[in-house]
Each structure stands twice: as C-alpha cells, then as structure tokens.
C-alpha cells in the first residue's frame, strides 16, 4: 500500500533524486507535493492567514530573529550539545553514534524551540491567550513555560488517557500557571486533544493563538514549525563536521507529528550522501494493528487541516493509534514527511514498544542518560541502522550516525518502572514502602498550595 521505499532500495532512489534535482530545503508550503494544504473550516482561514502573514514578516525582521536567538541561547540553553555515545555504539554494530541533546533544553525537549517562536508571534499579533494540545505533555509544558515568560494566558488540551500516563507533566503545567483540560472524547489521546483545541480556537480566535506543537496541521503550521526547529539540524551539522571532520552517514529521529525529525533533517536534505531515517511508533507490532505508523501503513487522507498519510478505515474514519509513547500516539504525520517518503529521500520504518524500551534501557545503562520514550524509538532505530550500515565493514567506526535525542525521560519514569516490572501491586516502586516513620507535615501543606493555585485558575 505504501509507496515509500523499503530499507534496501533507498540508496538509488535518493541519489537519483538528488543528482541535479532541485533543493529540498526551505519548502514553503502550502503544498509538499500533493500533501499539505488547508482542509479547514472557513472560520479559521482568516486566522491562518494572519499567522502566515505575521510569520513571513517576522522571518524578515532582524529584531525578531535577534529576539529568538537570544531566547534560544539565554533561556533554552542553545546550542544543545552533540554527545558521542561511545558505550552505546557497541549495541549499534560499532557505528559511532552521536546524540543531539535536545533533552538538555530548558523544559527537557525540542518542543521549546517552536514554542518560543510561536509565542513571540502571538505577542506580535496582539493575542493575549495561547492554547495548545499535548500528548506526552512536553509541548504543553513548553507552552505553559513560554506563556509564563511572555505573560500570556495558557490553556492546554490533553487526552485524559495521556493525563494519566504523564501525570507529572500535568502537575508541571499547573505549577507554571496553565489550565489543563482533560479531553475525554474519542481515543482520549493527542488527536482528540487537537480536535478540542481547534474547537476552542474557532470560538476564541480573536484573542487566541493556537500554538500547534508539531509540524502538521494546516498551512502555515508545517513550514513554520519546521522553521523554528531547523536550528537542531543546523547546529548538528556544524557540530558533527567539527567533531568528525565529515558529514554523518545517517541521521535518525522519531516521528510523532514529525517536528523534531524535520528540524534535524532539514539541514541535511540536500546532502545526498547522508541517509535519513524517520522512526514511527510500531506499538505492539504493525501486524497487530495496534500501532501509530502512519507512513508505513496509512494511506493519504485529510486530518486536522492537512492532506498526509493517515491511519484510517475503509470509511475514512480515523483509526485510533497505539503506542507506549504518548508523544508518538498520533494517527497521521506532518505533510512534508509524506512527501519526503514518497520521493524516497527519507526512509520511514516502524519501531515497536519493546524495541524502544530495550533501547531506552541500553542508553540509561551505557551512557547515564534517561531518554524520553519518544526519543527511544530513534535510538532503537539507530541500533538497527548501525548494524545495517556496518555490516561487512572492516572498520565499523567509520560509520557515523546522528540520533535526535528529542527529550529526556523524567516524565516517563513511571511508565518505564511499570514496563520493567519495578512496581508492586499498589503501584509503588518495590522496596520504597518499608519505612515505619509517620509522614511529616510538609507534604500536606504543599498539596494545599497546589490546590490554591488551581482554584485561582478556574
């Protein structure tokens, strides 16, 4: 069903395309091949035009660029490091693996790059309120953070199922002054959170900006979100040249909606020698039907404003996606990825929950880094391509691979503890409930404070 090439064939297709082909960089939308566009209610078209217009002007405004650079550097902590994972390499056929450390950004993931850019645009448009959807909670936390920083009201829509999976991030958002709205429609995950955010936007568009968290949705979001994340690939490209003296053989990222991936990929799109891999969530296995591998197994359709690969049934109803990772649990993908898949420039493969959790564990134990479960899909992919690319090579360490470590795993500790069987029947970490002392007072006081904060909000 899928036109995307399989792992074996991409060399020729990609090379053929790149030899003398036009640049793939800076695609402006609204269309990426036959993908993208604006499949949106008329009520929102004016708002999309306003965002697009503001974005185009801001891009050309040195003040805006300087402001964004300053925030990236002095608030987020950019540039993020490029760390060689030497002990992890042994698990990837001996290929040299370099981690682009988006986990070290303020708030713990790449999401902050896009959020700062869009929050600045919201201010420029004179909006006083931002709304966001969130899956893993990372985009919600980043949005709440930027809103606090810039003095904007913030409402975050989050699937009730995701609230449960990422309870820590719900608390973080609330501490930052945002209102979190649990979404109980449909699958109660990311796609339903986007539906509710769109309903809110339609009703409050006059003073509200919808801070979409991934490189999907209606034009200009895919191109705009990519623009704010391009810094990932630009930094990584010069860092790898500096550290190894050459371009990498391959780069890899996980794909939810595709923002961290397109941010890394963009700088390398025209480097014909660099193989590019996107890893989708294979859930319990693509053969089980319980997965989120939209490109690998979907077919083109429209959802949330863009034409793109989509998990849908024969009636065009969206199929619920499944992944251990809340941030990848989305049944579609950004339109530029669909295009890059079709032309064969990027290879998309599925990684199962089990493969991702194995890679999660390997990184923890070989490098002392706890990755987000989303990013663990990219790590699992790197293990696969590391083996593939070093096969038969006398000197496997000639092969270099950059992996986008899109976020840190603090938010996932509970999920991981359950996965690795570290919890007792009550859900406590085994061996932590042996103390016989009475709990002290402060616990309660903290709780009351948190409740007060909440009531202020509502």
């Amino acid at each position, binding site marked *: 069903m899928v036109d995307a090439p399989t792992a074996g064939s991409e060399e020729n297709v990609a090379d053929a395309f790149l030899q003398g082909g036009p640049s793939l960089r800076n695609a402006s939308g609204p269309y990426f091949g036959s993908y993208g566009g604006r499949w949106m*209610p008329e009520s929102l*078209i004016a708002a999309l035009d306003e965002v697009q217009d503001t974005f185009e002007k801001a891009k050309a405004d040195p003040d805006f660029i300087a402001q964004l650079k300053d925030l990236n550097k002095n608030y987020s902590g950019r540039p993020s490091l490029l760390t060689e994972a030497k002990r992890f390499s042994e698990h990837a056929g001996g290929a040299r693996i370099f981690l682009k450390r988006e986990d070290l950004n303020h708030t713990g993931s790449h999401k902050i790059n896009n959020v700062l850019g869009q929050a600045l645009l919201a201010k420029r448009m004179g909006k006083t309120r931002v709304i966001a959807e969130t899956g893993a909670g990372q985009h919600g936390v980043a949005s709440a953070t930027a809103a606090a920083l810039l003095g904007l009201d913030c409402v975050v829509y989050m699937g009730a199922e995701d609230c449960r999976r990422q309870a820590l991030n719900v608390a973080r958002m609330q501490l930052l002054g945002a209102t979190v709205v649990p979404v109980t429609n449909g699958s109660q995950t990311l796609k339903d959170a986007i539906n509710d955010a769109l*309903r809110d936007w339609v009703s409050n568009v006059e003073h509200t900006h919808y801070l979409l968290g991934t490189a999907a949705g209606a034009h200009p979001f895919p191109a705009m979100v990519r623009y704010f994340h391009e810094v990932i690939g630009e930094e990584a490209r010069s860092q790898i040249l500096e550290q190894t003296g050459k371009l990498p053989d391959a780069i890899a990222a996980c794909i939810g909606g595709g923002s961290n991936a397109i941010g890394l990929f963009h700088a390398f799109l025209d480097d014909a020698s660099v193989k590019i891999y996107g890893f989708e969530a294979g859930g319990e296995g693509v053969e089980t039907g319980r997965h989120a591998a939209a490109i690998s197994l979907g077919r083109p359709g429209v959802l*949330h404003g863009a034409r793109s690969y989509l998990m849908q049934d024969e009636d*065009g109803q969206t199929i619920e996606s499944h992944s251990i990772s809340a941030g990848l649990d989305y049944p579609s993908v950004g339109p530029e990825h669909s295009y890059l898949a079709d032309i064969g420039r990027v290879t998309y493969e599925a990684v199962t929950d089990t493969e991702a959790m194995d890679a999660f564990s390997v990184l923890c134990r070989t490098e002392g880094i706890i990755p987000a479960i989303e990013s663990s899909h990219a790590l699992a992919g790197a293990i696969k391509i590391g083996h593939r690319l070093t096969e038969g090579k006398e000197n496997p360490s000639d092969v270099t691979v950059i992996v986008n470590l899109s976020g840190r795993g603090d938010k996932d500790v509970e999920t991981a503890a359950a996965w690795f069987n570290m919890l007792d029947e009550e859900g406590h970490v085994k061996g932590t409930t042996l103390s016989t002392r009475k709990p002290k007072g402060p616990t309660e006081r903290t709780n009351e404070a948190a409740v007060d904060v909440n009531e202020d909000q509502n």
Partner: protein
Amino acid sequence: MTEEFASKSAAAIDRAKAEGRAALVGYLPAGYPTVQESIEAGIALARNGADLIEIGIPYSDPVMDGPVIQAATTEAISNGFRVANVFDVVAGITAATDSAVLVMTYWNPVMRMGVDEFARRLAEAGGAGLITPDLVPDEAHEWFEASDRYGLDRVFLVAPSSTPERLDMTVKASRGFVYAVSIMGVTGTRTSVSSTAEDVVARAHAAGAERVCVGLGVSNPDHVREIAAYADGVIVGTALVAALRDGGVDAVGQLTKNLSAGLGRAAAEA
C-alpha cells in the same frame, strides 16, 4: 453562483420564498440512533415544515461540532453506521417527501470513497448536494468537477471572519445556497443569536449570493423569527438532535412544527 441546471436546494428555498417566508433547514445525523430511525426522523422533519434536510455523516473527528452532535455521531458509529448508509438515508427520505436532502460531511470520508464515486451515489440516491464544513473552495477542485458532472449543489460556508475577497470567491464557488455561520464557534445551542450573523448575510448578498441560510446556535422559534427577517433560510441542528435524543421521532416532528412557526409563514399552514 453557477446555476447551469436546476438546483434542488435553490428550488426548495425559492418555493418558501414564493410563500413569502424563509426556508427551514433541519440537520440530523445519519444512523442516529439507527439507520432506520434516522430515515423516520428525516421524514418527520420534512412533514412538519423543513424545506431542506441536512443529513450529517458521523465522523471520528468532527472539529466543527459541539458536545451534543459529537455524542450523537459517536453513538451512530458505535451502533454500526457505515458511510455508504448515508445513501440509504437520503434515498429513504427523498422517496417519502419533496424536501431537498443535502449531505453534510467532513471531507475525509468523501475522499476515501473517491469524490466521483461519492457524488455519483449521492445523485443516484436523490440527494441535492453537499455541505462541506472543512472543505474550502481553495481545496475543492475534485469536488467542482464531480458536482458539475452529477448536478449536485456545493454549499460552502462563510463566516464572520471571512474577508471580502474570500466571501466573494466562496459565493461564486457555491451552488444552491451559501451557508453563513452565525458566530465564531462550533455547533451547539445558544441563548441568543449573535448580531454578526446579519452582517455576514448582508455581505454575502452583496457579493452576489441569491440564497443565504444561517446556521450555528439556532434553537428556538424566536431565533428562527429573528433570522428569517434577513436570511433566505434558517438552519437548526443541535436542538433537533437533542429532541431526537430525548423524545424520539415524535419530538423531532413537534420541534420542527414549533420552529417553522417562526418563519413568518401564512398562519393557516399548520
């Protein structure tokens, strides 16, 4: 508006006009609570004063709908509704009444079936055309072709936020009537109808639309009366769905009768 053939929706609105009143457009989802009951409810709409009937296709991601319609369409899907059933519903209602029957649908189910195939089957079932809440004319090339080929109406939406250029473009692209969204928001009942509606209708008329119907938030005879004073048709959705939910087909008939009292129809009618 292009009008190369007899538009069923336009004819229905014009019949109401000839009676000196605005048209009543009633919305109900196909397959809610079952396919058969949705046919009966549609017939009750028609027999009690709806000039046009809008049959919604239940869809997994209805971003323009509020909680009442969401709940109904979700229930329809879990009761086994399949997209092709919409043609049975349309055929069932058109066989029993003279009302123009349009289908309201989000675009992906149409795309999935194939725009041409969908249009062919809708025309075969006696449908008048499509109302497309998430398809703007900018993306509608395929639908232009198919609707011309099968003689179907293309009802696009205009909103308070539509710029003059877009309003102009959308009015030209539409056939049958133009759907003016009364407020910035999603479907649902509201206590009052926003005054922006009148402005949108005036702008659409000025842009050349012969028939403009107003929807979103219209739920009682007073709303109907207010809108009927300036628009060519009044669209009621959520209130009818709630009536069907709470009181079944009879309640739909009763509410339709009440609503049509607001149309300014000659009193003898009922």
